[in-house]
């Protein structure tokens, strides 16, 4: 039994959903009680998807347990096929259904549906989200990629891009960026999967000459299978950062027997980093935490490409613990391998970093500790699914990374001035361009805002002729959420002034509210 406040990874069936939701023409029948449908909102809200995830939840209830939950599964699977007409289906159990041991795979087979139905064992009580995604993708590839076939000699090699899923951190843009880079190298993309692929596309995976593994957390088992079954080698370098992208290019050229003559795009990062303005970045202390792939990439960029000092390194991906430990050890640090968010908070707090590079969780930890932060890895929240093109991979990805890591920091000269004139009243902790994003709204500009410790009369001491707040009204005002309180205060005072009231009562507050409406 493990006590958990916040989790880095969801349950394994969420990983399966990420694969299914990224694909087209695949339907997932999940044996699950009501409530597990919350997972839909991850995709429709956080990622702003405009379609429901292609998932049917069987929705069994307590009263069904003694009778026939297997029948409920069969009905749901049959109905899902009829309604959605998928080209292939996956079936599996969420945590509760796993306890019932209904065997969705066997039940679905008995239905003899006219499309491939692939069972996925999700091991809900020992495995987590990324494992669920990689297992699902592996099962799909194994089930649909068919037999090894002869591949023609090609002037332009053909590759598959493996690993992008729904709800992945910048997966949408990484696929575009790496496709552009490969095309510039003289390489064509056969299939990108799972995101964007159909079950029929997976039957064509074997046509490619080799595979590009974008996210090992998700694609490694599938790539290893394809190497064995179809004789396709795969890339080992994840192209995040300038150095890693160059190594990736070299790897692709080697696998594709390509010369290194082509003109390639370049990144602005090297010059942005070498220009004198960036001097102040030297040796800034950063703490890095996230999934294995992004943490390993970020550590290298921070050290070699921006000149930061890495004061903490860790991951929640136990599958990548060995790599992260080795990297940390190479620089005389100890890696933090945990999925306990309180442990991460304690480590960040102890390391006194000047910048935190992490997930959504570290963003909140950093906010509490009042540290600047940039998000580098899933789990991410809605603001980390930007409208603009913002890849992490390739040369444009390096540009995006430089900007998004440096923007939360105070700029060089500004930092100097703050250090020199600490007693200047305007140089409080929320001064600088950071104020807008990290300071409590309006606190800096309205010193007259009520302080909880001041007596009410002092807190609202009026300028001459202004209405006075009664103690009750003042209390009532505090019940209004802080982010609209300022507006409510202003409107009420305006309302009272216009009517020549000297005292603001609770009634005035609500009269004004009713008057102004919204």
């Amino acid at each position: 039994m493990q006590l958990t406040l916040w989790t880095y990874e969801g349950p394994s069936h969420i990983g399966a959903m990420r694969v299914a939701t990224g694909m087209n023409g695949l339907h997932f029948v999940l044996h699950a009680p009501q409530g597990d449908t919350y997972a839909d909102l991850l995709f429709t809200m956080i990622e702003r998807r405009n379609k429901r995830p292609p998932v049917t939840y069987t929705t069994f209830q307590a009263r069904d347990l003694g009778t026939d939950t297997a029948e409920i599964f069969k009905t749901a699977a049959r109905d899902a096929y009829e309604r959605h007409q998928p080209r292939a289906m996956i079936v599996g159990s969420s945590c509760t259904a796993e306890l019932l041991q209904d065997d969705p795979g066997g039940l679905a087979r008995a239905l003899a549906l006219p499309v491939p139905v692939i069972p996925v064992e999700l091991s809900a009580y020992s495995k987590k989200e990324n494992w669920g995604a990689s297992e699902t993708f592996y099962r799909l590839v194994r089930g649909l990629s068919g037999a090894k076939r002869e591949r023609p000699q090609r002037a332009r090699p053909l590759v598959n891009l493996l690993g992008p899923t729904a709800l992945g951190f910048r997966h949408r843009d990484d696929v575009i960026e790496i496709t552009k880079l490969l095309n510039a190298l003289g390489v064509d993309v056969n299939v990108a999967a799972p995101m964007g692929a159909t079950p029929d596309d997976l039957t064509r995976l074997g046509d490619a000459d080799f595979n590009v593994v974008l996210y090992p957390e998700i694609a490694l088992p599938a790539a290893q299978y394809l190497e064995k079954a179809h004789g396709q080698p795969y890339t080992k370098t994840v192209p995040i950062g300038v150095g890693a992208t160059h190594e990736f290019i070299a790897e692709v050229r080697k696998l594709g027997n390509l010369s290194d003559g082509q003109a390639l795009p370049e990144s602005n990062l090297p010059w942005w980093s070498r220009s004198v303005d960036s001097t102040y970045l030297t040796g800034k202390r950063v703490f890095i935490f996230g999934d294995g792939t992004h943490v390993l990439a970020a550590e290298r960029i921070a050290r070699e490409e921006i000149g930061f000092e890495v004061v903490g390194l860790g991951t929640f991906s136990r599958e990548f613990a060995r790599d992260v430990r080795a990297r940390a050890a190479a620089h005389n640090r100890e890696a933090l391998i945990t999925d306990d968010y309180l442990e991460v908070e304690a480590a960040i707090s102890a390391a006194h970093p000047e910048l935190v590079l992490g997930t959504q969780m570290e963003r909140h930890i950093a906010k509490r500790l009042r540290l600047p932060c940039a998000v580098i890895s899933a789990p991410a929240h809605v603001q980390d699914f930007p409208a603009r093109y913002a890849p992490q991979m390739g040369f444009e990805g390096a540009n995006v990374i430089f900007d998004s890591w440096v923007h939360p920091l105070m700029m060089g000269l500004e930092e100097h001035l703050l250090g020199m004139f600490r007693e200047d009243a305007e140089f409080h902790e929320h001064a600088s361009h950071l104020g807008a994003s990290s300071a409590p709204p309006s606190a800096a500009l309205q010193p007259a805002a009520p302080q909880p410790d001041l007596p009410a009369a002092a807190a609202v001491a009026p300028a001459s002729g202004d209405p006075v707040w009664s103690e009750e009204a003042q209390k009532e005002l505090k019940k209004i959420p802080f982010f609209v309180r300022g507006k409510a205060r202003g409107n009420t005072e305006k309302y009272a002034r216009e009517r020549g009231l000297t005292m603001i009562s609770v009634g005035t507050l609500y009269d004004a509210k009713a008057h102004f409406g919204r």
Partner: protein
Amino acid sequence: MNETLRSPAPDAPVVHHERGQRSVFCGLAGIVWLHRKIQDAFFLVVGSRTCAHLLQSAAGVMIFAEPRFATAILEERDLAGLADVNDELDNVVARLLERRPDIKMLFLVGSCPSEVIKIDLVRAAQRLNRIHSPRAKVVSYSGSGIEKTFTEGEDACLAALVPDLPLDAASAPSLLVVGALADVVEDQFATTFREIGVEARFLPARRADSMPAVGPNTKFILAQPFLAETARALELRGAKRIPAVFPLGSEGTSLWLKAVADAFNVQAATLDAATAPGRARAEMSLARHREQLAGKKIFFFPDSQLEVPLARFLARELGMKPVDVSTPYLHQQLLAEELALLSSETRLNEGSAVDDQLDRCREARPDLTVCGLGLANPLEAEGLPTKWAIELLFTPIQGYDQAGDLAELFTRPLTRRSRLEV
């Protein structure tokens, strides 16, 4: 009052029953507001990684504070019997109470997996009470999706509190208001009741040690429509329910307050004097929204069980046309007063079959659809404006001074659409 107070329709409503796939939270989701309402309570879910992930996803916006809820995640060794679940739970609770000395009440919350493998949380709570009393009180209830739909979780939580409420042996009648309300709303109601000479107590109280007393002279009124089990538990303690519509909108609030006034023999003039200013303000705020909403069709997916009172409010006070109103459960008795005010043209459904409901929604082309977060963007993308149902539980909406805010929740999506030129 005004012409919106028509006499109830005589014919009983026809209710369609649907069964199929649902798209609604389980009872655990109530923890998201309950843990804020009871300021020294902690909610410990005994469940799976899915439970933890659900709470985190439903409460994602509140991560800025250290939450007063957590999940004790069952692992393979717990299921295989390698670890004694009760010992493990005792250890988790001991660690938790040690870390959070401010916690005075601990809820052990059952989940789907804990129900299926039959972990007896009632007995666990008794055992833990013996260990931790009087330092903290331990109570158990089930929020599991195999038994509880969304707001039924609050019902189960409050019902679990009732047997331990202190006895009110006084001979004078007392008023108990039942259901978690925003603090601001609760304060407003307390003030109004005081003005008409009735001292009100509230369940749940804001602190564990100030939970209200209950006894044979307690009269209680529900502030939320989903509290059937709590109502039954209170009746077992001898308390009497005051039947009423729910305090949504100006008319709803008036009828709700009037039901209390009648039960306590308050003079009509006293009630009128206490409520006239609030009523006038509510009418003024609603007028603005009525212009925009009158005649518009609204469609409800089943979600919070607030659907029927909301449909009544929107139809009678804002002139909307509720064409299809689904609710997870329809407690005919608790909603009798509401149903009497609902037009017979409205299709009423109990239960869920989400794909069929989506078909009906597309067919009806409503001007506004109230639905869960999983359906909102997909419907918007099909050109159907939506209102997130969950916002109706996270916003103060009851009472006169919130009537305009409640209406505004329905006008905002339409206003937004009319502004956008892209």
